[in-house]
């Protein structure tokens, strides 16, 4: 199909982009890799009078280690995240997560910043970013701030970015070597998007849980960290019956997405199953 008519700008610098964003505010939409926005525009689910195509901003395309963090420019392609030796050596779960996104064609076009700013509740990165406790950098003409990923996702396709802000960078603290991470996804056969996805970080001290982080996607309008679940496990001796017991609360009391392919009961069940499987894999049983 053909999108509704729009004007398109291609800024050459971040400053130029920020100026355009500040000028057009909510009339404008930022286009990065275009893997989600363009189909939505072609279907006319989304229509914007102005498109600011930042695809040419090479200054936002980098992967580096600095201050104990891995910093990834917003326009870094999924495929670059997947193939980065720095990332696979420091945060292998992130390489794996990137490799699970859609297909190679999409990974060669889609960007990490675009994916996070798009805030699709079924995307691959969010649960993993949540357990890695990543931050994003948001820039505007008035300066920049960092937003913790846990505060980024507001609802479906909605973030806490202000209308004059551009997401420019993702910063991921390099995790403690003793914390093990895992990621599982139930891909929708049509798109590869998660029906449910789950990321877990687990640090054991002998048989005791020293630290645990659990996040889910595909379940509600936003991916979320399950802090209640984490609290139930911290400092406890990890065994099958505890894992079974705590997993019962997953998704309870939440408004779980339900559709013809997977209803709420099934999504909850898959989330529980993934959590249990990841907990067992990571504790090494």
């Amino acid at each position, binding site marked *: *199909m*053909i999108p509704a008519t729009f004007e398109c700008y291609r800024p050459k610098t971040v400053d130029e982009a920020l100026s355009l964003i500040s000028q057009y505010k909510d009339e404008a939409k930022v286009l990065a890799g275009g893997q989600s926005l363009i189909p939505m525009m072609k279907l*006319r689910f989304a229509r914007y009078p102005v498109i600011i195509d930042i695809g040419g901003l090479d200054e936002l395309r980098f992967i580096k280690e600095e201050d104990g963090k891995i910093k990834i420019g917003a326009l870094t392609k999924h495929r670059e995240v997947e193939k980065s030796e720095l990332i696979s050596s420091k945060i292998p779960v992130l390489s794996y997560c990137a490799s699970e996104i859609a297909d190679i064609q999409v990974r060669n076009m889609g960007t990490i910043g675009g994916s996070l700013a798009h805030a699709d509740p079924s995307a691959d990165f969010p649960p993993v970013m949540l357990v890695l406790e990543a931050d994003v950098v948001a820039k505007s003409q008035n300066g920049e701030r960092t937003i913790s990923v846990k505060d980024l996702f507001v609802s479906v396709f909605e973030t806490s970015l202000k209308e004059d802000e551009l997401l420019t960078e993702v910063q991921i603290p390099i995790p403690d070597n003793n914390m093990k991470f895992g990621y599982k996804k*139930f891909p*929708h056969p049509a798109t590869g998007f998660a029906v449910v996805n789950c990321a877990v970080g687990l640090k054991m001290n002998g048989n005791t849980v020293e630290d645990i982080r659990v996040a889910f996607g595909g379940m509600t309008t936003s991916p979320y960290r399950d802090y209640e679940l984490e609290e139930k496990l911290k400092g406890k001796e990890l065994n099958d019956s505890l894992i079974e017991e705590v997993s019962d609360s997953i998704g309870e009391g939440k408004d779980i997405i339900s559709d013809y392919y997977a209803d709420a009961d*099934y999504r909850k069940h898959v989330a529980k199953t993934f959590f249990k499987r990841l907990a067992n894999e990571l504790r090494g049983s």
Partner: protein
Amino acid sequence: MGVVGQPVKRKEDRRLITGYGEFLEDIKLPGMLYAVFVRSPLAHGKIVSIDTSEAENYPGVVAVFTAKDLEGKVNDNPVAWIVPDSNQADVKRPLLARDKVRFMGEPVAVVIAESRQAAYDAAELVYVDYEDLPAVVQADEAVKDGAPLVHEHVPNNIALKWHVKGGDVEKAFSEADRIIKQRIHIHRAAPVPLEPRGAVAKYNPGKDKLTVWVTTQNAHIHRFLLSVILNEPEHKIRVITPDVGGGFGAKIPVYIEEAVVSFAAMQLKRPVKWVETRSEHFVSSIHGRDFIGELEFAVKNDGKILGIRGKNYGNLGAYYSTISPGCVTVLHGLILPGTYDIQAFDYEMYGVFTNTAPTDADRGAGRPEALFFLERMVDIIAQELGLDPVEVRKKNLLPPGENIKTVTGLVYDSADYQKAMNKALEIADYEGLRKQQEELRKECRYIGIGVVSHIDICGFAPSKVVGAVGLQAGQWESAIVRVHPTGKVTIVSGASPHGQGSDTTYSQIVSDILGIPIEDIELVYGDTDAVQMGWGTYGSRGAATGGTAVAKAAKKVFEKAKMLAAHFLETEEENLEFKDGVFIRKDNPEKKITIQDVALQANVAWNLPEGVEPGLEAEVFYDPSNFTYPFGTHICVVEVDPETGQVDFLKYLAVDDAGNILNPLLADGQVQGGIVHGIGHSMYEAIVYSEDGQLLTGSFNEYALPKAHLVPHIENHYTITPSNVNELGVKGIGEAGAIAAQVCVANAIIDALKPFGIKHLDSPYTPARIWKAIQEAKQNGGNA
């Protein structure tokens, strides 16, 4: 050795793979306008008013048409299958909705503009005021008293009812040890060709000639029906088929959109193009399947099936599509007994209107549904009786033979069902698989083995037979084989390949008969001004019907060439040997003439025998004496994760018997494509409507086609039982894979679930459905 039977690579591929295909979207004509349809967002509603003024004034818009503009100028779209003795309701589809809309996606207006952009923009500015009416989407709901009526003059939404009865049903059921009953819903899916629908129409007022390019499987049928709809004489319409990016049945019907753009081109005297979006395809082309069967099988305790009784509600959607009445009746019921010796049969078939998009042929058209019912029932019978499903099948298979008359009146051309089944069981090591299944169950791992014996009705077909069962068309096929002065050959066929590789297989056939290399032969088809009458490609008829016509024409050419060669070599025909394209005198091998030289002499006609016409070509109209019935056995092995319901394929093995195989490479491709189609329909693809008739799976975001990583490696094997219907001994292979695989996968999955006490589960086999079934079974006391 000839080239027929050799794995010749497709001649078509180089062109298509290097981007030189010429598809409908590639057609651009000077002054061409673009059409975009305004479609109903409601499943059922009265049209109160349509305001087109804003759209008409939008820059670039040339015209906006609604039903009012068509009134008195065109006719409604007729149905091309009127099933005898079925009380088939008289319903014709208006080109644009009049008074009310009957399914989500039904066009109410068309916007014609200078650019596609303008047409899409303006289409959003056509304001239609609807009064919402209650909708009905499921066939067995639609027939109930008080259900909303899709067409007011069709009571209980029953469009037609067809009854097939044979043998002594009462006796069979009274002698049965058990009567096994099951309701089975084979869910709605869609053919989903890679290339969506489209048409370009151009009208020349000087010649009063309408040219329509259309993505179709059957150009001549389009010309015929467009002539009826548009009141334009048939010889004033030329339908041209560009390269077609897949059909699978979706490009058999004559769609109202094609007629509307033709009307627009005639009114505006400018070319008009319409290419649908994928979303429009899902909402408004055709879907398939969606049959609800209520089946009863009379069986003996040893598994012998004595009789079948039952009925089926076939969902037709809101209107008839071109051949849909046949899909829910003739193409379905007559083959239901399958490869089994079942002597009593009583089956009522209802075609039911609902507030959904029309259904029609979807790779198999009625036969996949029949095999699904039958082969699910055989597995259920085995489970009920505590027998091995293969044992039950073997007990009931018809013996090998020819011209086997069935209880429904079909005559199976040639059969050796045991041979195919035994071969499949042996290669798959069926006994070993069953042992493995037992072992793994002890570890709480659940593998399932699906075995089906499949059969298809192909090679459409004896015209008087299809006429007797209501198809408003013939089903013979035509071919011209024309040898040019340089000895190159053009085949002109009434068939209309769209991915089958007929350019290759027909060339192989001609090459063997005339001794002319394949690369010197080319196929022309799909242009009604260049091609004699023919009926197109569908129903696995390309080889059996189209191919046989080609063979017959090539043989006629050969006979003339031989006669001329004898004349040129000054001898008798009996004294000639033909080898590698050369006629050689047996008594004097020095004296010879190539077929190319014969062609030159025939075409210049300087020295022909008295009374012989110039030229070297022949035309054949071939009407087969019977259908063909390919068959085989497929085996599928899956593992089900009982915790998530996810299914992994462990094996898919196909033994097919399509008679003689013209090209094993193409046969493998057809079977594999069909199996992928069947797997998709079984597990991933689902057209789902909400209760109020909103399509929930209207894009590739929701409708999952089977991608490469979602299907298993497929092992292809064959047995060869030549057909006695045609001289090539071929049967047809395009649909068999789809027919067999859909139920084979179902049987494998449900077999895996047997330890939970699950006997049947309706499709699609999504992980959520499987998991739910396991949960319910556990609550009902199933073990495992």
